[in-house]
């Protein structure tokens, strides 16, 4: 059952990622990215990381993608301009991509520890444990992150503001 659920959500992820690549319109790419992020949140739940799953939905699929779609609609971004691909890339790139992918998958499956599979079902990443660790072991990094976010807010305001001097 868990394997079925994993394969289902992984198929959604793969489909969304491929759709992001092949779509010409920017808004369609953004919507398929939302599909990827939503199915990734469900995969996190399968892995027991409930805090990360909720944060994924709220921050990634909520805040960041809303910002993206807001900017896409604000700038009225339509179809993407086509550019001619090189013939060398078509001749060597696609077979090379397949060969590299197959070799990578083979190596990973050969060397992965099959005897230590991931236990699933037990929610062992609850929010209180994560928060306790965040405010004790990683307190300095957390505070530095707050400064980063503050600088990002100021930078966004300064960059997006219309300059009154010109």
């Amino acid at each position: 059952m868990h394997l079925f659920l994993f394969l289902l959500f992984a198929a959604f992820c793969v489909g969304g990622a491929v759709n992001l690549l092949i779509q010409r319109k920017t808004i369609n790419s953004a919507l398929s990215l939302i599909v990827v992020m939503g199915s990734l949140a469900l995969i996190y739940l399968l892995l027991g990381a409930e805090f990360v799953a909720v944060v994924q939905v709220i921050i990634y699929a909520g805040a960041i993608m809303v910002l993206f779609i807001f900017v896409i609609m604000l700038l009225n971004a339509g179809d993407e301009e086509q550019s001619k691909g090189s013939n060398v890339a078509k001749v060597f790139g696609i077979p090379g991509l397949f060969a590299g992918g197959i070799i990578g998958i083979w190596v990973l499956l050969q060397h992965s520890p099959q005897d230590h599979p991931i236990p699933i079902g037990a929610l062992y990443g609850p929010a209180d444990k994560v928060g306790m660790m965040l405010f004790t072991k990683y307190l300095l990094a957390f505070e530095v992150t707050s400064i980063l976010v503050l600088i990002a807010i100021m930078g966004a305001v300064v960059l997006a503001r219309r300059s009154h001097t010109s």
Partner: protein
Amino acid sequence: MTIPISYYLLLSAFLFACGVTGFLIKRNIITLFMSIELMLNGVNLSFIAFATRLGTLDGHIFVFFVMVVAAAEAAVGLAIIISVYRTRETLNVDRVNLLKL
């Protein structure tokens, strides 16, 4: 019933590869940004899979920090995109080739 960690790593690698491919072949600057987000998501999946495998919560904290950095990057980057569009009237990265207008 359990799932081997290699499945998660394969999915993570595929998402990262899709992000790299999109970053290289796309022309729209917003789509490039979304490809970067896709790469970050792939890395996050690796973090969570290894955290679950090793039985620690440190990976969850790292994912939290990655998300914070991604949010900050998206806010600043989209502000830059708006500024670029305002001055150049285009979103095609091939046409944004001058530092100074």
